[in-house]
Each structure stands twice: as C-alpha cells, then as structure tokens.
C-alpha cells in the first residue's frame, strides 16, 4: 500500500508524460487526477492506521540503490507518524490541485505536460517524505526542485517565467550545496546516512569537533547548520527567499501546490525529521529560531505593500514558514509540523481562491485593477474570507491553534534564551502585519469601487487572449467551474476545522502517543508543557494584533481609501524600501549576479574564446584541414613519385634498423 501511495503519481507522470499526446488532453487529466485521488485515499488510511491507531513504525526496503565501500543506500519507505502527516498533506493538496487544474488550465494547449509535471512533483515529494536516509531525501529534494523549475517555467514562451524558473533553481542550488556538505559531514561522522544509524549515533557526537578552515567546529552544530542551509533554500528563508515571489510566474495551481503547501515546507519537514541531530546542538536551534523570526517579520513587512495578489500570498507563505521554523527552533518540532499541516490547507485555499479571482478576471493579477468583486463571485469571496480568517488566526480556525501555539512556544522558550524572546516579539508584530495585509487583500479585491471593467476593456480591446469563453460575457467576472470550486470547499473545511480536530494529537495532551519516536526531544526539552504555563496576556497578544490589523486595513481600504496613498507619499523612502522588497534583488544582483556574469564573460571571451578555442578546437580544426591538404597533395598520381616514396620509406626503416641494432649490441 505504501508503495502504491508513492508510485501511483509516478505512474500518472509516465502515462501523461509519455502518452499524453496520444491519449489526448482529457484522458491525461482524468488518469493523473484519479491516480492522485487513490493515492490520497490510501494516505488517509495510512494516517489513521499509523498516526491515530497503533502507530507501528515500518521502513520496508524496496531495493538497494547503491553500495560503495561503507556507503550503502537503499530505496525504502519510512512510514511513521511524521511521514503519515506529510503524506496526507501532500496527497490531499495535490489531488485537489489536480482537480482544480482541470478547470483552471482548460484553455492551455499543453495540458498533458502540465499534469505530468504535477504528478512528477507529487512523486518526488512523496519520495522525500518517505525517505529513510539522507540520499533518498536528497533525491526527492532535487526531484521537487526539478518539478518546481519545470512548472514555474511552464509557460516557457514568457521570458519572465523562464527567468523566474532559473532563479528558483539557482537560489536553491545554494541551499542544496549546504545540504550536500551536511550529508557528507554526517557520513564522515557516522559512516552512514541511514536515519536509524545516524540517530543512534547522534548523542555520542554532541561534543565532538571537526577541523575545517583552520578552526575547530562542533561537529553536530556544523552538520545541522549545513543541513539547515538546504532547508533555508527550499523553504525560502531570509537571504535565500528571493526566488519564492518570482516563482509566482508559474500557473496558480502550481503556486498553491508547490510554493505554498508542500515543497516549500520540505525544509520544515527536514528539520523535524532530523530532530535527533538538531536536539544535540543548541547553537543550531538558536540559528533556526533567529532565521525563522527574521523571515516571519521581514516577509510580512514586504507583504504590506505588494499589489500583485499572488505576491502578497507568496510573501505571506514566506512569513508563515518563518513561524514554522521558530516553532522548530524553540524545540517544539510538533508546533512547526502542526502549523505546516494547517497552513497547507488555508494557504492552498488562498492560492486557489486567488486563482479563481484571476480566472474570473481573465488573468488579471494586479489588485489595483480589482475591487467590488464580492457580489460577482460570492462563493470565491466566502472561501477567501475563510482562508484569511484561518491565516490571521481568528479563534477556532486552523491558524488560531497552530500559529498562536508557536507564538506561545516562543515566549515560553524566551525564558531561557534572548533569541527566542526576540523571535517572540518579531512574531507578534508579524501577526499584526499578517492580519493587515491579508485583510487588505480581501478589501482591495472584493470591496470598494470596481476598478476592473474599464481596465479590462482597455487591456483586452479585441479580446484576443487566446481565450475561449463563448460561455460567458466578455469582461464580466464569472464564478469558476465546479472542478475549481470543489477543491475550494474541501480546503475551506480543512482551514476551519483542521486545527480544532487535530490539536490534541499534534501538540496537546495526546502528542506523545501520537508522534511516538518520529520526533525526538531531548530530556531537557519540555517546551510543549512550558507553553501552557505562560502569562495570560501572551495568549491574547496575537488576537489583539489580529484585530488591530483588521481594523487598520478596514480603515485604510474601506472607510478612507485615500489614506494609503497619503501614507506612501509621506514616507516615500520607507514605502519604496518595502515595495522593492528591502532591495534584496538589487543587492544580490550587484554582489553575485553582476560579478558572476563578469567572471563568466571573462572566462568565456578571454579564457575559452581566446585561449582554449583558438588553440584548441578551432586551432586543431584548422591544422587538421592544413594536414589534410598536405596529405592529399602527396598523392601526385605519378608512379615515379610513388616508387620514390616507397624507397624513401624503405631507406628510413633500414637506417633506423641499423642504428637500433648498434644501440642494442
């Protein structure tokens, strides 16, 4: 059954990828989607079976991948509670996104390719979460990276999509470099990369050190930080976050699946999976907390002023990932995973809802050209509102349980650590900003004056969008088809109820029974208990921030819509700073991209062109042609020349024979 979960999407990928042209669009869609739903159903069975009932742990080995000296790598499926949680997150969102894409992509000309990529992504993600060793995890890690690259650049005729795809790939490479180094270091320390072996060896390595760059490093800290570097890349954490907003160039279902619910959480999953290692290094956990806190704050500030509906949600994702890392960093691995779990529902919901809005407005993504839509697409509006409530942590919604728990955890850990306290402050402020930008999105999109119709007609005068909409009026926003709405309903239920239903198992009284050995906590780590023993005001702080954010957004975008422009005019520097995302792209361009191009051009023109090509291929080719001419000219056609050549050769050989003999005797 476990194999079926993982390999059915692969089957779908192969069918749609290899036979998509032959099968046609619709059969490809149906096959991949149906396989995903089967996989999803099996995942839920697994979750109930492994997570909620007996919780037996298993890691069946499928095949030996490679054995080289000490290094032995197997293909195997590690099934424990953590995996089963990830399985349901991945397959549920993926199945719903498949279904949604049938409606969303209905105008696209290469749908089999799209569905093949989606299934490929799902397969890789499942390989990642079921891995029983670092190498298989890396395989899945790179697999999702590849699928992400392919899907961001799905509309490859758009230069911006290509650039975004490349950017995502390159930035991830930085993180993957760290991941590889971390993997090598773990192998060096333990002689294995199988989880069971390295987890067993981890406590013994807590105080070991390795010598590198002339310094002694704590082995565990170094390994964890290197591995965390990989997590930072994949999960778009501060400094390596720049690719995520650009990744919104991909189709919206892709953003929902990959860049909100699943792939970007791979880093969170990885840290949780490797909790036995991270528990051995307080330093590494502090870094995780700090990075998470900064990301949560930073991304929220940028989200305040973005105008592209998907970018706002993208920065929100970035920010929420920061929350998860803070949860992990303070030792509450369950907190991070719980937020991952609930976040998958409401963030996928927000993205798919945004997709529905974009669909309704014929691929308009700028919120400044929206407004007043709530009466046109009321169902979408309702779903988006549910998503927003969950994201901002409205009581009893999913985000309320998971996000507030992280904030409380951070405060509890703040008792022994200044960094955790700093993270707590950042998170609380970020919670207020989250509320503000989320409601701003809702108000700008659904309320206020309608700004879309004129622009729409201006933008698409002859309506030549390659758009096949004989079933609705030109320019009139319309509710999306049923295939797109059903996923929204399902996710809405998740966004409302996932927190309440599962809080007991994930972070409450039954947590120990639930997670068993899949998450490791050291003997001094009591974060799940300490977070209940905090002052009452801490529990109310996020709620207060949420209400504050809501009120400010309401005021600025509904009551007095002139205020934002006035504010931006009053603080132009700050506004520009935020609008340009703290100038990170420009900074990276100056520090890395430009010099890299310069260096590349130097090697290309100077090194390769002037030296290697001239002396190498080009030069050799020219000499070969000369040689060929010379060799051909030897063949004069005159028989006396031929005889002469023979005699000359004979004489040379004879001479050589005599001399070699003289030397020999």
């Amino acid at each position, binding site marked *: 059954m476990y194999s079926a979960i993982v390999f059915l999407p692969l089957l779908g990928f192969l069918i749609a990828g290899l036979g998509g042209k032959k099968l046609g669009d619709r059969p490809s869609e149906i096959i991949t989607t149906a396989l995903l739903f089967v996989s999803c159903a099996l995942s839920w069975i697994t979750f109930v079976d492994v997570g909620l009932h007996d919780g037996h742990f298993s890691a069946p080995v499928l095949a030996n991948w490679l054995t080289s000296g000490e290094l032995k790598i197997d293909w195997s499926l590690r099934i424990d509670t953590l995996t089963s949680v990830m399985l349901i997150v991945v397959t549920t969102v993926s199945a719903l996104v498949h279904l949604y894409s049938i409606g969303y992509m209905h105008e696209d000309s290469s749908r089999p390719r799209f569905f093949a990529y989606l299934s490929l992504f799902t397969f890789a993600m499942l390989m990642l979460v079921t891995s029983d060793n670092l190498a298989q995890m890396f395989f899945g890690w790179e697999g999702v990276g590849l699928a992400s690259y392919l899907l961001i650049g799905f509309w490859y005729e758009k230069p911006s999509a290509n650039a975004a795809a490349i950017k995502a790939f390159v930035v991830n490479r930085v993180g993957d470099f760290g991941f590889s180094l971390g993997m090598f270091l773990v192998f060096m320390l333990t002689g294995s990369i199988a989880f069971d072996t390295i987890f067993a060896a981890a406590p013994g390595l807590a105080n070991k050190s390795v010598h590198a760059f002339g310094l002694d490093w704590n082995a565990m800290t170094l390994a964890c930080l290197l591995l965390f570097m990989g997590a930072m890349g994949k999960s778009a954490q501060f400094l390596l976050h720049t690719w995520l907003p650009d990744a919104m160039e991909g189709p919206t279902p892709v953003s929902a699946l990959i860049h909100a619910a699943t792939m970007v959480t791979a880093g969170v999953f990885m840290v949780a999976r490797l909790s036995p290692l991270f528990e051995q290094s307080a330093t590494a956990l502090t870094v995780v907390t700090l990075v998470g806190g900064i990301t949560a704050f930073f991304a929220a500030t940028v989200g305040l002023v973005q105008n592209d509906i998907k970018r706002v949600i993208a920065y929100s994702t970035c920010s929420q990932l920061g929350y998860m890392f803070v949860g992990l960093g303070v030792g509450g691995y369950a907190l991070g995973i719980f937020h991952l779990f609930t976040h998958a529902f409401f963030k996928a919901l927000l993205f798919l809802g945004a997709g529905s809005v974009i669909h309704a407005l014929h691929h308009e993504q700028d919120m400044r050209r929206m407004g007043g839509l709530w009466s046109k697409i009321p169902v979408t509006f309702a779903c988006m509102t549910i998503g927003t409530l969950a994201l901002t942590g409205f009581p009893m919604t999913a985000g309320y349980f998971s996000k507030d728990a992280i904030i409380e955890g951070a405060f509890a850990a703040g008792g022994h650590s200044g960094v955790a306290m700093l993270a707590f402050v950042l998170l609380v402020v970020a919670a207020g900003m989250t509320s503000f930008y989320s409601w701003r999105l809702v108000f700008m999109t659904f309320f206020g004056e309608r700004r879309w119709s004129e622009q729409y007609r201006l933008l698409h005068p002859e309506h030549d969008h390659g758009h096949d909409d004989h079933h609705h009026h030109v320019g009139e926003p319309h509710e999306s088809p049923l295939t797109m709405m059903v996923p929204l309903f399902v996710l809405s239920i998740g966004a409302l109820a996932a927190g309440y239903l599962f809080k007991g198992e994930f972070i409450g009284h039954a947590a120990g029974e639930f997670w068993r050995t899949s998450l490791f906590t050291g003997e001094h780590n009591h974060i799940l208990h300490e977070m209940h023993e905090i002052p009452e005001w801490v529990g109310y702080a996020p709620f207060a921030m949420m209400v504050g954010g809501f009120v400010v957004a309401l005021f600025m975008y509904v009551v007095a819509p002139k205020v934002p422009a006035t504010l931006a005019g009053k603080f132009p520097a700050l506004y520009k700073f935020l609008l340009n995302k703290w100038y990170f792209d420009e900074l990276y361009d100056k520090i890395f991209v430009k010099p890299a191009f310069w260096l590349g051009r130097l090697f290309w023109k100077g090194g390769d062109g002037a030296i290697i090509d001239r002396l190498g291929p080009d030069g050799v080719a020219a000499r070969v*042609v000369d040689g*060929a001419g010379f060799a051909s000219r030897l063949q004069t056609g005159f028989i006396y020349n031929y*005889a002469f050549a*023979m005699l000359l*050769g004979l004489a040379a050989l004879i001479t050589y*024979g005599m001399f070699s*003999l003289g030397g020999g005797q």
Partner: protein
Amino acid sequence: METLQLALVHALPEVILAIGVIAMVLVGAFRGKPDDGPMSEIAVVLLGAALVAIVLKTPGVSGVVFDNAFVDDRFGDFMKALALIGSIVTLLMAGDFFRGEGINKFEFPILVVLATLGMMMLISANGLIALYLGLELMSLALYVTAALSRDDARASEAGLKYFVLGALSSGMLLYGASLLYGFSGNVSFAGIAAAIGDHPNVGVIFGLVFLFTGLAFKMSVVPFHMWTPDVYEGAPTPVTAFFASAPKMAAVAIATRVIYTAFPGATHQWQQIVIFMSIASMALGAFAAIKQDNIKRLMAYSSIGHMGFALVGLAAGTEEGVKGVLFYMAIYLVMTLGAFAAILSMRVNGKPVEKISDLSGLDNTNRPMALFIALLMVSLSGVPPLAGFFAKWYVFLAAVQANLFTLAVIGVLCSAVAAFYYWRIIKVMYFDDAAPAFDKPSLTLRAVLAVSAVSMLLYWVYPAPLVQAADSAAKSLF
C-alpha cells in the same frame, strides 16, 4: 614421416580451390563464349565449399605438412575464413555491376578464385618460398582484375600502376628473403627463428625490413600505400571491394605470422617498424581522407587508416595484441563489405556514381539505405556500442597493456580526426538537399548492406562466438 593423404587433408580447402579453378579454366576455355554465364555461381560454390571445409574441420587438428612449407592451424583457419567470406560476398555483389557495364567476362570469377587460393596459401605459408608463391599467385590475379575494364583509361592506369609498384615491392620482398636465407641458412620460419636467436645481426635486420616492406605494400600501410587511392578509384567498384577486403586479410595474416614465428628474437626491431607504420597509416588515413570527394578514394584512405589501427594490435607483440588484430580484421571485413555494398548501390539511371555529394539527402529518397550507411559510418568511426568500437577497443587495450601508451593515445586522436569524414557522410545524407534518387539496388546488395549494418549494431548482444574464435586463433600462434 607424413603421408600425402595427411598433407592433402590438412590442405583440403586449398585442394578444393585448386582443382576447382582448373576445371573453371577449362570450362571457360571450351565454352566458347566471353560472358561469365554460370561461372560466378560455380566460383561461389567452390569458395563456399572451401569455407565449409574450414568450418567443419575437426577442431584442434593442426599440423605442418609439405616439408615444413604449409602450416594448418586455428590462426590460419580464422583468417582464411575471413578471406573466403570477402571473396564470396564480392562475387555475389559483382555480377550486376559487371553486367551493367558490359564487362561480365568469365575470367573475373576465375581470377577471384585464383587470388583467393593464393591468399590461403599465403596465410598458411610456413616458409619464405611458400610465402612468395602464395603472394605472387594472389598478386598476379589481382593485377589483372584491376585492369579488367580494358577500355576504361582509369582502370588500365590503375592496373598498370598496381602492377609496376607491386613488382617493385615483390623485388624488395625477394631481396629480403634472400638476405634472410643467406644469414640464417633456413627458409622455414621456425628455422630462421632458431638461427637468429636473441641477437639478430645486421643482415637479418636488413632482411626483415625488406621482407616486411613487401608485406606492407600488400597491406597498403604508409609509406607503401601510394598505389591504394589511385587503384581503388580507378578499378571497377566490385574489384575495389575485393581489394579492400580479402587480400587485406591475407596480408595482415602473413605479416602477423612472419613476425611472430620467424622473428621472436628481434621483437624490439620489428616492433619499432610496426609502430612507425601504424602511426603513419593512422595519421594519413585520418587526414588525407578529409579532402576527398570521391567515395571510393575516401574508402581507400579509410582502409589505410584501418590497417594502421590493426597494426596497433600487432605492435603490442602479445597474444592479446594478436587477438585484437584478428578481431579487428573480422569487424573491418564486415564493415568494408557493407560500405561497398552501399557504394555499389549508388546508381542513377543505370549509371554508377561515386561522388559523396551524390549521397545528398539520401534520407529523403531512400530512408533504410541512409540509416544503414549511417550505422556503418558510425561503426567505422568507432562509436560504442557498435562493433567498430570494440575492434578499436581490443587493439588499444592490447597496446596499453604492452605499455605502448603513446601509440594508443595517437591512435585515439587519429580516430577522432577520422570521425570527421565518416560523420560528414551522415551529415550529407541527412541534412543536405536531396540529390537524384538512386535506382533500386539488387536484393543481394540490399541484403549485404542490411546484414552488415545490423550485425555491427547488434554485435554487442552476442559477442562470444567471435571473441572466442579470435581467442583460440591467437593462442595457436604462440
């Protein structure tokens, strides 16, 4: 004391050909018609009978008969089988061409059988006299076939050039033989080896060089190759196919046998000679072919290059090396016959054409033929997994194992340069604008081309028979 029966049993294939060819001469003379009639078929049957006699021979039976002049061993069997296959396929392919040109004379099959008989005697020669007998029997028949098309100036020129230069080389060979006899007092290879021991004197070295020069001429290795391009281009195409295939087997076989059985004590000297010739041939074959636009001339340089590669194995001086040579020659034979089947298929409106540009756009006009030629070209250039790669692999491996690194590296580089002109043909066939379509080739030509190309492509599926045969043949020489 051997009996005549025993000797005749050992030489059964040669006996079959000798008696058969006399009968053919008589039939041809008394038939009273100049055309070939059934002669081609008779010749094929004769050669086929000889091949069967070799294949069905009790394995492991070997012996030296006819007063030490004739040796019957696995090595000989292997090379004779190759030579016979070359002759048979040539005859099968030749008929249509000669009939089309109006030169289907009955002498051609007879000459081929005679030449083949000479080759087999040459391969089995165990002494200088037998060597010369076989060589001349083969060569004289070949001179005539080169000039078979008497009314064609180019063919006549080719025949004459071949004859004059061949005479020169025979002279050198004979002079070398006489020197060897003078300094060792022996004509049998074993006797020579025993007489010179480990310290060859200058007379022996002279003899060795002269003798090897004569053989090098037949192998067409640099600098004794000069006749090759002209003769290949001038002679009728089936004759060229014959030159490129069967006689090469015999010449390489006897060169191998001579240096391993007669000069084991002069390894250092002959190794240097062979290395020099090998490098020169590989280089010339690679470079000179680039400028050719006539495909027969290109094949001439290609065969010079391939002989150079075969000599790489010879230069190694080990059993592995001999195995590599045998293997190389077998693969070379199949590729060459396939390539000439393709060249013979190049006819437009009944007229043969032989420019490379005539192949332009063949992919559009005759897709299977283009594919097969492409496969052969890829194999000739030595790209895995085609058989041509394994041929080169074995000889280079032998050279590396014998510490001849420079030779192996030069070989690989030359092979890279040579790939250019093979791949250019592919480029011409697939990317250039279509030239006039060829006539539909005969079934024989299509079959030879297809079998050759497919066997090169799929060789790796079941390589054991050829490898084992080459292995046991190489062992019998040591």
